[in-house]
């Protein structure tokens, strides 16, 4: 899958470059002055190519909860306690953007690594002897890696050296890898005294537990800063998963996890994503020419 993703990236790059350089430079007005740009529609367009990287935080939004361990009738159920936006993930992206008249359309193939966790708690007590008590706390951390194809539309709010923008779009994610770590600790009062313990974590590959593909929508804002012909970009986005990020069919198929009583809920993943990047103009890089913003 990684190979295919790389091929797609290279193809996208080549296509962009070929198209970007397809039209000849207007020799009558090669300086790219503001007047020239205004009179020449060709100069009002630009391709940008660059890289972005950053960090993300994830929320698993439960659609339907599932559990291996069934409590007795009328028992108080201790549901999974999800912790939202508390673990940092990371992402790197290649950005290919076409700009015209304040609007940009951007394809940003991304390698997206996200993390989220939840906790379960179980307690058993001897009704005749309350000191006979065992408490177990399960901390379940999921790590997923997806290759993503976001398609975004940007609008530059103002045009100057510092150019704030807003953007929105969709993305499609293809699973590359997934792992899960379960840490169990507890307190055992039934051993004749207070016995606090922590077991070795259970680490398993969890590719089968997560969706092979999912999609979502994204919206955010950022700012571009033009440093000569190079554009630095800083942006923040909120992404909302629109389809399930877990596998509904393989929920119980990992015996190592099912054995300790875990089953993934039906979840959609939402993310807060921060990225910093560097973009380069791909059109009209003749000497003395400045990009659209000068």
């Amino acid at each position, binding site marked *: 899958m990684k190979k295919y993703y790389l091929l797609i990236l290279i193809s996208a790059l080549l296509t962009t470059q070929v198209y970007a350089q397809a039209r000849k430079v207007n020799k009558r007005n090669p300086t790219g002055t503001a007047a020239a740009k205004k009179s020449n529609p060709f100069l009002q367009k630009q391709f940008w190519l660059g890289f972005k990287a950053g960090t993300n935080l994830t929320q698993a939004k439960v659609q339907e909860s599932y559990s291996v361990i069934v409590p007795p009738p009328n028992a108080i159920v201790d549901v999974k306690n999800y912790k939202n936006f508390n673990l940092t993930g990371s992402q790197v992206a290649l950005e290919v953007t076409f700009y015209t008249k304040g609007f940009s359309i951007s394809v940003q193939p991304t390698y997206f690594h996200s993390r989220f966790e939840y906790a379960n708690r179980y307690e058993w007590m*001897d009704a005749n002897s309350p000191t006979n008590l065992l408490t177990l706390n399960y901390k379940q951390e999921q790590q997923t890696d997806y290759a993503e194809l976001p398609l975004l539309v940007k609008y530059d709010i103002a045009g100057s050296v510092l150019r704030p923008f807003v953007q929105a779009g969709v993305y499609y994610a293809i699973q590359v890898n997934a792992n899960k770590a379960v840490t169990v600790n507890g307190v055992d009062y039934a051993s004749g005294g207070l016995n606090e313990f922590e077991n070795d974590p259970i680490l398993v590959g969890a590719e089968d537990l997560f*969706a092979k593909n999912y999609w979502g929508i994204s919206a955010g804002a950022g700012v571009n800063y033009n440093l000569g012909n190079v554009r630095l970009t800083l942006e923040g986005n909120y992404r909302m998963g629109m389809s399930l990020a877990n596998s509904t069919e393989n929920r*119980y198929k990992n015996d190592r996890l099912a054995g300790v009583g875990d089953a993934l809920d039906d979840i959609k993943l939402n993310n807060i994503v921060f990225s910093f990047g560097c973009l380069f103009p791909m059109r009209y890089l003749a000497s003395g020419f400045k990009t659209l913003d000068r």
Partner: protein
Amino acid sequence: MKSIIRIFLPLTLLVSACLEKADLRLEEKSFFRIYDNADFNAAFTPIDIQQTSDEGYLVLAGKRLDDSNFTGIYLLKVDKTGQIVNEVDDFDTQYVNPVGPLLLINGAYHFVCMDTNLQLAQLVRLNANGDIDGSITPLGLTYPLAINTDGNNILLLSYDNEDKQMDITQLSATGSISAGPTGFSIGVGDETEEPIINHFIQGGRKFPFAIGRTSGGAIYYNGFYNYTFSLVFTSFGADDPAGVVYGQQDDGGFSAVMPVGAGQFAASRFNFGDNFLLPQINLTTNGITIGTELGGFTLPELAPNATVRLLHHTTDQQASIVFGSNTQARQIALLAYNEDDGSFTGSRYLGFANPFEIGNLIQTSDDGIAVCGITYLAGRFPRICIFKLSKQEVEELTK
């Protein structure tokens, strides 16, 4: 515009077809559940699972009794996704030591237990919800060991401690005796009886007692005969067995046996801790056979003298013999063999981290398999668990 639609519409459909969608029906096809109990001292031992007409499951289990030498009775009804519908946790404690499997006769489920005072066998009739249907019927026989269906009747293997013999009896579904009892001596001496009595005591060693009828019409029982745990072929009213497959006193014998054709059986043996699987074996129902000469596949991964359950799994495409047993690694092993030629087709190991032990396994209405067992939550609390394997998962095992 049309060309864009031509490209993007099929692409969108293709992409959306690959997405995961919430589907509660998947929970019916495949699930795994552990049924917890908040009681620190609760301990359950599943005996049998049956699928009910509403596609839910009824589980018969033993339950630890604090003030008794015997095992109490516990019933659990779950729906087709494994969620609890009914729990019978307050079965009268004068009735103990439930004997399975649950027998479906005339729309009702039957099992046998015994009373604590006289150790008399009692027939219990249940509805599909696990509640007692009618009264509990005393059968006039002591120490029930095994039951099976015989048409609309019930075959019962019991132990008569007065005459020191194994009794076989045919009962109607209402509990009246229609044939037998016919008894065969276990041999004289307290040491011969000791393993049988221990079988009834909570925590004592359990023997794989069984009873049934072969396709040829003979009654067989797996139990003690002539000082030895043996497979005995006989008929009602006979003075002596027609055939015996001898074990090794209480150290060897059959751990499971199931007739699959004329003179043909699927079986497993234990012998001084070793286990041998016999997916296809011809047994002589007339005459004497020494069990240790039967051979079989040795499976070192199985626990010593492992509990073995047999399932005849049949679909339109395939007939298989599935062995369910316990491994040294405390997992439940499912080992499948082709019924026609006895060749091995696949294995699946259920459970991890916490110990697991098999109770029983059945074929479900969707050609999947349901396995009930026991797992030790947190490594120490014995709780009932159910694995439901889908038809696709079973096909991976049997093809």
